[in-house]
């Protein structure tokens, strides 16, 4: 019997679990996929929003501003990269300047500090690569960028260090009342009992809610496609460059990432299938066309990858649904958490953990581990620091990923940690192996070997991303290389 089961190991589920781990509770996280951060958390704009966008009085507005405040100290605590690079909303016609005033007013009402309208000259001075068509911009200095999946990994590691159990490949098929608590039926028929449930199931969160509450919600998946540009383009813009929403574009941005690459996107298209993360020729064309308004010289030949993510848009209230429905005590929703969900996640984590703990009358533990499973990264080190690491473990001197300078020791650490990688993509997101310009061409066979060795499975069983995503179809000679 668990005290709390969190459904979903995205950034929201992990933030709630980690905050809950401060309390003397038996906590579990169940995740449908094979890893942390497999939904919207791995495919979004990686923006920590200032908070001028959301409707005043909404949960989105409230948790955005709260989350933005919490982000910097949280990232420092967890060793997650965060840069407060500021956001600009660019107007391309005088008529759009009025919209900037509206955003400024709305933002100020939401509690966003230091908003300012910039003239064309001020904008150009700040961002010399901006299109000459730009006439002005809203400047929000509290906007920032982070690595969303890295945040989720560190939250999960820290939660696990404080006793939270993680269970992967465990889709929740049914939630039902069981005495005063809840019974969850997982794929394969396994059942788990718990006093409280936190529903952080992302695009599937309405399905869980609708099984336990008469107050129904409806998530309509909305896909966003992105193009990622090589690190060689770093410095093209220092701020996150939004456009005033118009008929021509629905919020396609260009932003530096904390890894030095440039992210361009997203589109916004309603789709039927909640798991359909395809990219489309239509979507990618739209990204190119609309982004070129901001950056006429958009260097598409520097593209290193494309991807898409799915927003969990709730259609009845268009807002985050947070907390217990009246008719389902002990069932806590984090439903409809789309943008600014990443920004809000630290605040949602605190809010829901506080309510769950109060419900259970739980006391805070006297000891809380700060361990979030960090390992040294040679690309961030000076020669002297590398020397020191190599003296301890020669595997730090074996560079496996050339584009991102990742050593064998780091890959092994990413597999061996508490909530460790089990697939090629799991290694990739934890280490950046294969995320550079060659996209894994060189390092894939090497990581395959390391995963096989660490997991004690033959190379043919190693997957790209869990499930049936096996990288190989067979062996030509030899039993096993190891």
């Amino acid at each position: 019997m668990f005290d709390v089961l969190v459904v979903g190991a995205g950034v929201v589920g992990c933030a709630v679990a980690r905050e809950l781990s401060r309390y003397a509770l038996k906590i579990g996280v169940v995740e449908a996929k094979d890893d942390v951060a497999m939904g919207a958390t791995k495919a979004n704009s990686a923006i920590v929003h200032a908070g001028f966008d959301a409707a005043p009085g909404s949960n989105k507005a409230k948790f955005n501003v709260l989350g933005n405040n919490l982000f910097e100290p949280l990232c420092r605590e967890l060793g997650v990269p965060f840069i407060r690079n500021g956001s600009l909303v660019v107007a391309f016609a005088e008529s759009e300047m009025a919209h900037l005033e509206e955003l400024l007013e709305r933002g100020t009402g939401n509690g966003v500090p230091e908003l300012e309208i910039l003239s064309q000259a001020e904008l150009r001075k700040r961002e010399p690569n901006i299109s000459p068509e730009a006439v002005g911009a809203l400047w929000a200095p509290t906007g920032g960028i982070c690595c969303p999946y890295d945040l989720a990994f560190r939250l999960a590691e820290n939660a696990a260090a404080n006793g939270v159990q993680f269970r992967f490949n465990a889709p929740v098929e049914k939630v039902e009342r069981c005495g005063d608590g809840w019974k969850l039926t997982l794929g394969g028929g396994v059942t788990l009992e718990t006093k409280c449930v936190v529903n952080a199931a992302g695009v599937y969160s309405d399905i869980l809610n609708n099984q336990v509450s008469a107050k129904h919600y409806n998530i309509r998946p909305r896909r966003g496609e992105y193009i990622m540009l090589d690190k060689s383009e770093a410095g093209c813009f220092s701020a996150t460059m939004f456009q005033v929403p118009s008929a021509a574009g629905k919020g396609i941005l260009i932003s530096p990432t904390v890894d030095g690459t440039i992210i361009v996107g997203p589109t916004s298209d309603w789709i039927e299938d909640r798991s359909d993360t395809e990219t489309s020729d239509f979507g990618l064309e739209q990204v190119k066309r609309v982004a070129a308004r901001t950056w006429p010289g958009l260097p598409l030949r520097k593209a290193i990858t494309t991807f898409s993510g799915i927003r969990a848009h709730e259609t009845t209230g268009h807002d985050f649904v947070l907390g217990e429905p009246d008719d389902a005590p002990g069932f806590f929703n984090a439903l409809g958490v789309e943008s600014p969900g990443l920004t809000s996640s630290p605040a949602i984590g605190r809010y829901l953990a506080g309510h769950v703990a109060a419900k259970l009358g739980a006391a805070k533990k006297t000891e809380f581990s700060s361990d979030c499973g960090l390992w040294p990264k040679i690309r961030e080190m000076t020669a002297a620091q590398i020397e020191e690491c190599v003296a301890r473990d020669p595997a730090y001197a074996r560079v496996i990923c050339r584009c991102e300078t990742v050593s064998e020791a780091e890959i092994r650490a990413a597999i061996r940690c508490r909530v460790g990688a089990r697939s090629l993509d799991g290694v990739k997101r934890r280490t950046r192996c294969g995320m550079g310009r060659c996209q894994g061409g060189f390092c894939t066979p090497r990581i395959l070997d390391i995963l096989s060795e660490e997991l004690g499975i033959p190379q043919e069983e190693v997957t790209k991303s869990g499930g049936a995503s096996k990288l190989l179809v067979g062996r030509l000679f030899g039993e096993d290389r190891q």
Partner: protein
Amino acid sequence: MIEVEVLVVGAGPAGLAAAIAAREAGCSKVLILERDDAPGGILQQCIHPGFGLHRFKEELTGPEYAQRFIDRVNAENIPVQCRTMVLDISQDRKVTAVSPENGVQVFSAKAVVLAMGCRERPRGALMIPGTRPAGVYTAGTAQRLVNMEGLMPGKRVVVLGSGDIGLIMSRRMTFQGAKVLACVELMPYSSGLKRNIVQCLDDFGIPLLLSHTVTKIHGRERVEGVTVMRVDERRVPVPGSEQYFECDTLMLSVGLIPENELSLKAGVKLSPVTGGPEVDDSMQTGVPGVFACGNVLHVHDLVDYVSLESETAGRAAAAFALGGGAGDVKKIPVSDGFGVRGCVPQEISAAGSDDKVALSFRPAGVYRKAWWRVRSGDKVLHKQFAMILTPGESQRVELNRKLFEGLDGVVVEVVQSEEKQ
């Protein structure tokens, strides 16, 4: 700080040949740094024959070709430090490297030869729409898996791009029992060698679909199929021409990119056309004492010419290391004329010492029954006829250095027919 005369980055065919040439030119302290476990570079995984026809007048496999040079490196006692990753090269030729055996080392080199090779263009650069499943491999990665690890990446394969590695791997996968359904090429001509199209596709009945491309990848977890469409002359897919191929693997052979991250750190200027450093005829980059050769400089069709080019670089690096720089000397610019892309070298040094000057380039398109020539003003230094010129087959000539004396610049160009000259 470890002092060396000529430091070579990379022990592939280029690095090996450069090091041997530097030693033969009188350098006692030559060192090769190699990131892999053994020397040989990409040739280690190229187990097919066809190497060395020009150089050795016999047909060798990749490992055999490499071994000839490895044997000479060993005979000359040139140290090859493997498992060593170069992290940085400074403009004054301080080279920082790391290895499990030696930790972090800093070398001070009188001359540096860049021989890092190239990498393959990945799927992401092509922005092919669809899913992102397992089973999308570059041909070189597939080649490594099959030939070196004994691991089979797929059973039903569509190849996108007709670069040489893709052609070679079409045959290789067929040998290993896979079904290669088609080789799909965006351009109206192949970017691979004619002999590879005949021996790797035609001989096995694998269709080459020119002016076609993959427009969508299907399959959530593993590749389940690809959509292929015909493209028009602007390379835009033609609606209605969709064909679906059921397959578990998409193999990419869509271009090679010289790997110049270290060159940039050293302050070397790259050519936007070749993707490699701009060099003079001694293979010296714009940074004095820093030389480049092999696929890091420009992508070669044949390793035989990599060896030749690298020997030039090695000799020149040795001369630089032993005698210092030549100071300011006149450089004769070489420019790309009509139909010519990425002529190397970009300059010819009036102070060069080799009797011959090698020029090579890739045709910018397909030209039938065409001449190409090296010209300075009205003076034609060289001209030669070809039944067909294609981007897949680079052209090369060695000219007497004397021909360039007193010239202000030369242009290399294609002339469509004799009459037009």
